[in-house]
């Protein structure tokens, strides 16, 4: 029996690896997911035969409740809320890991546990709780329950450092004296505290990096559980999770041209747009061409090739369907329409891709920065839909700019650039954008979705 259960865990591990391998192309990704779900089912069913499990009395209702909530959440959450949904899942994962840790601790004789098990239990509980509260904070910031602006106050740093040192000391003591209950609960408490105090001073817009990092902590907690209860599928799933979170957060910081440390300790970002800072001694507000719906449509009408650059604003105004409809209308008139997707456009890796896929835009029309950046020079019109930082030429030209070196789209090389935004406020980085003031740029103010819908109606009247 026991070796059958363990074999099923090996099967599940292989399935999970295959799931991630299949994610390397959109064509087979769904099959991979099916394989993963199969592996999960096998592992769960096998576990039910474990001799330690004596009753299904509590298992059945709890599993049903969880499945119901999970199904409901996944069916109704809008795609624009994915970052929130992912943060929430991490907090569930973290909570589950730490509760299992506590339950393992209270039901075993501490003197019968090996050092390894004790250390693993400590790690599991610590990282589990840290992930739990940290992800809750991230969720709150994204949802606006907590202000997105970095929260810092005198003494916060001191608290952070104290909690960090305290957790290490407590972990060490715990490994030596596993029978000391207080120490175990101190470890748990420091995890809970650090999750809060380490996340609140980070700006709301940096939450995606934080969420990915918490993903890797959740993975570590999971692996630690595996070490504690001697279960390899947990170790493997945790390691896969952990590397995934780590790689994504690295990728994001790199694409934002900021160091990890700067994200975590920089208190960067204000969480919302702000009016551009006055540029040096020049106090005149710079001039920009404000266009009307009619102007913009005339330009679009004449274009042979259009490149759409979506950004966070498209997610905010839920404009993806309108964008697709406008694109289809332009294509019907004979123009080619392509979408240029920046790796950190929006607020989550792959954010724009998911939204446009939701709106039924084929993934063959979506282009990565390397594949499209040389084509802007031969392009007629660029339509910037709520993007800002990812089209800021300062990243290429101004060595003083904090985003200098971040790869950006060469939109300014196209014949005309139409920018959709609500105001002249800045984007995530809080930096002014010269692009808006260039002679070949036309700014159309207003909510992106409404503006695009107006474009389409206007276009139709002209047919």
């Amino acid at each position: 029996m026991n070796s059958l259960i363990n074999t099923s865990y090996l099967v599940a591990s292989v399935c999970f690896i295959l799931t991630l391998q299949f994610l390397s192309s959109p064509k087979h990704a769904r099959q991979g997911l099916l394989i993963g779900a199969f592996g999960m089912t096998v592992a769960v069913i096998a576990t039910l035969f474990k001799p330690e499990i004596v009753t299904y009395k509590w298992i059945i209702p709890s599993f049903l409740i969880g499945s119901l909530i999970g199904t409901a959440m996944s069916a109704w959450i809008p795609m624009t809320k994915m970052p929130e949904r992912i943060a929430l899942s991490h907090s569930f994962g973290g909570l589950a890991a730490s509760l299992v840790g506590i339950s393992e601790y209270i039901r075993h004789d501490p003197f019968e546990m090996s050092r390894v098990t004790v250390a693993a239990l400590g790690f599991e509980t610590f990282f589990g709780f840290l992930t739990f509260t940290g992800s809750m904070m991230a969720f709150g910031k994204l949802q606006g329950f907590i202000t997105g602006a970095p929260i810092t106050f005198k003494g916060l740093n001191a608290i952070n450092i104290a909690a960090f040192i305290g957790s290490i000391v407590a972990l060490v003591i715990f490994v030596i004296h596993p029978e000391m209950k207080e120490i175990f609960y101190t470890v748990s408490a420091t995890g809970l505290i650090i999750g809060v105090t380490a996340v609140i001073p980070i700006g709301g817009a940096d939450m995606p990096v934080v969420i990915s990092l918490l993903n890797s902590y959740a993975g570590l907690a999971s692996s630690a559980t595996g070490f504690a209860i001697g279960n390899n599928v947990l170790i493997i799933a945790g390691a896969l999770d952990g590397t995934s979170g780590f790689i994504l957060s690295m990728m994001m910081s790199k694409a934002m041209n900021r160091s990890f440390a700067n994200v975590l300790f920089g208190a960067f970002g204000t969480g919302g747009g702000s009016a551009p800072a006055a540029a040096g001694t020049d106090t005149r507000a710079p001039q920009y061409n404000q266009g009307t719906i009619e102007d913009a449509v005339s330009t679009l009408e004449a274009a042979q090739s259009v490149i759409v650059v979506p950004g966070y604003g498209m997610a905010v105004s839920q404009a993806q369907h309108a964008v697709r409809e406008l694109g289809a209308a332009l294509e019907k008139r004979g123009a080619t329409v392509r979408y240029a997707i920046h790796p950190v456009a929006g607020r989550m890796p792959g954010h724009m891709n998911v939204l446009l896929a939701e709106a039924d835009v084929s993934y063959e029309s979506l282009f990565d920065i390397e594949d499209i950046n040389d084509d802007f020079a031969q392009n007629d019109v660029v339509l910037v839909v709520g993007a800002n930082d990812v089209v800021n030429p300062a990243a290429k030209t101004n060595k003083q700019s904090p985003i200098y070196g971040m790869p950006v789209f060469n939109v300014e090389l196209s014949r005309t650039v139409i920018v959709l935004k609500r105001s002249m406020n800045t984007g995530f980085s809080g930096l002014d954008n010269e692009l808006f003031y260039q002679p070949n740029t036309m700014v159309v103010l207003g909510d992106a979705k409404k503006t695009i819908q107006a474009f389409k109606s206007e276009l139709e009247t002209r047919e």
Partner: protein
Amino acid sequence: MANELLLALYIFVLAGFLGHHVISKVPPLLHTPLMAGTNAIAGISLVGSLVAAGGDFSHASTILGFIAVVCASINAVGGFLITDRMLRMFRKKGERRS
């Protein structure tokens, strides 16, 4: 003991290297489904939670297990469903939605 730790370490290290290679091959196009998908896989913590909830240990242990099963099954069930919902949306030109 030391031996048991070492074997677990072997597995952890190998899986870590493997994760590095596998994840780097996921294109930016699918990064959001990747995040949701690893979330689903993390639902495997169910195997630990089930033992706590179904074992005959103590009331406290059972309650903790109960909550843990709820949390883990939200991830396991919900994670796969939402990832699938997302992936279903990705389609080639002319392909019909399923």
